[in-house]
């Protein structure tokens, strides 16, 4: 196993001035040859199952580079997890070591070794342990129910990443989520620098920083990109490449980004923590060609009961923890729970199986309603949701963020609802709209849905 690829080896191949930077920290990628974010205590973490509870993303990035190849397992915890969730992840992953960055006391999780990571890197006095093929334990996004833990390796996480020249990468994602982790690994594999947001940093501040260094490749969820459009500061950056993933990219959003960044290649990718990276679409249209269902190779797809199933060489190995179901079926296909529909020779994502609103027995995917709302000229972003109703069980309502020049009044509401009536079956038309100035997104970068 000593020749297994690992992150510190991967980045040691380049000797230029690449960095990873957040608002608060910048560190050089060529510093890991003789130094570590964990200092000499890196040695105590060899072959351990390490839970990473780090608030700052730059420190987390440095710790990941240090721990891959050294630890037996790394358990990635997104910021904001409370102690009970941390403890349950630690239990399920047989954690015996904790890495934290807080100035306060480390979270009370029973472990044998506690180490603090920090920046700048501190010198190592012996060669770094690098003989393990580390398991990467990632939480699923938990769009339906509490997150489950899945097992990846650097091989499965980087399998879909093709060779590419150095870039200036940036992402709105947290790198402890699958979508952000992909960009982190993409940047390291291509010997690129990577610019990251800080937890709770405003989109204006992030765009200003990205713009100042002239980032060329930017990734985020559709919700992140809608925030960029709403900020009015989208032109602070001038990317060559714009990537969307993690939620459905509708055609209204794709056209708005096309108008904002006329010279950029715009791609929307489909991936999940369990199934890995499945595909990326770059023809500027929503959905993907139905002919891709026929494709052979490292990723195959099929549709069962409306839901997309994926068999991939890059999928996660298994779930961790008690009472977990198999990650894939007998043929190796992962049921993504993402519902697709045919329109002509194209397939479109319409929503999550678990997110269906039942209006008197008729099923509504909130995402389908949002796609129609977002296509209206006055609408920047929207969220459809269920409200319980004594007659039909539920009704669809929606919150809408208007584009700057439009006024939130009865005429506007009736115009938007009229457009919905023209394009949607009656039970899918919102029974009412509420105009809001902003829509909350989760720490994973996705539109926050209720319940």
């Amino acid at each position, binding site marked *: 196993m000593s020749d297994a690829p690992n992150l510190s080896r991967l980045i040691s191949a380049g000797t230029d001035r690449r960095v990873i930077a957040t608002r608060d920290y910048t560190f050089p990628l060529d510093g890991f040859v003789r130094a570590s974010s964990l200092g000499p205590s890196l040695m105590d973490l060899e072959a351990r199952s390490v839970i990473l509870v780090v608030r700052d993303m730059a420190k987390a990035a440095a710790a990941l580079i240090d721990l891959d190849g050294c630890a037996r397992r790394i358990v990635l915890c997104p910021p904001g997890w409370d102690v009970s969730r941390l403890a349950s992840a630690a239990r399920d992953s047989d954690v015996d070591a904790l890495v934290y960055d807080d100035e306060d006391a480390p979270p009370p999780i029973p472990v044998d070794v506690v180490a603090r990571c920090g920046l700048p890197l501190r010198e190592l006095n012996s060669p770094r342990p690098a003989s393990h093929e580390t398991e990467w334990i990632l939480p699923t996004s938990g769009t339906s129910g509490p997150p489950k833990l899945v097992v990846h390796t650097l091989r499965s996480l980087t399998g879909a990443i093709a060779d590419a020249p150095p870039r200036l990468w940036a992402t709105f994602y947290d790198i402890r989520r699958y979508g952000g982790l992909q960009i982190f690994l993409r940047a390291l594999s291509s010997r690129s620098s990577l610019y990251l947001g800080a937890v709770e940093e405003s989109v204006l501040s992030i765009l200003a920083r990205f713009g100042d260094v002239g980032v060329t490749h930017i990734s985020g969820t559709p919700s992140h990109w809608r925030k960029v459009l709403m900020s009015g500061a989208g032109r602070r950056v001038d990317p060559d490449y714009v990537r969307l993933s993690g939620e459905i990219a509708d055609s209204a959003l794709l056209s708005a980004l096309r108008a904002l960044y006329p010279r950029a290649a715009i791609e929307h990718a489909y991936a999940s923590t369990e199934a890995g990276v499945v595909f990326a679409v770059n023809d500027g249209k929503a959905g993907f060609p139905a002919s891709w269902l026929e494709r052979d190779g490292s990723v195959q797809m099929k549709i069962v009961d409306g839901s997309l199933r994926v068999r991939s060489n890059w999928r996660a190995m298994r779930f961790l923890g008690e009472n977990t179901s198999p990650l894939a079926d007998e043929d190796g296909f992962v049921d993504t729970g993402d519902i697709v529909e045919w329109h002509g020779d194209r397939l479109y994502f319409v929503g999550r199986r678990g997110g269906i609103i039942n*209006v*008197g027995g008729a099923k509504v995917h909130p995402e389908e309603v949002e796609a129609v709302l977002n296509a209206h000229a006055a609408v920047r972003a929207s969220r459809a949701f269920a*409200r319980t*109703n*004594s*007659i039909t069980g539920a009704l669809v309502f929606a919150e809408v963020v208007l584009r700057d020049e439009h006024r939130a009044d009865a005429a506007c509401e009736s115009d938007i*609802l009229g457009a919905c009536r023209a394009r949607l079956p009656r039970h899918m038309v919102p*029974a009412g709209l509420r105009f809001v100035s902003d829509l909350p997104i989760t720490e994973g970068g996705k539109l926050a849905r209720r319940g």
Partner: protein
Amino acid sequence: MRSIILDEIRTIALDQNKELPELIGDVDLQGLGFDSLCFAILFARLEDITGRDPLNAANFTRFPSTMSELIALYEETVV
């Protein structure tokens, strides 16, 4: 209350392309030509206005069949 309810019924009928009968006297609710979706929207809108969902109230017994019964539901629960 009657005029509020009549307004909402007219709006819903317009939105849903339903032709209403003349709304005079104690209108029979079945005669409105409303389906369950229309009634669902009506009760949701009335809940927004009054803050009450009488169909969900502890003392609710029977779905109203006439306009006066419908009005009574809200006038009772407003107390």
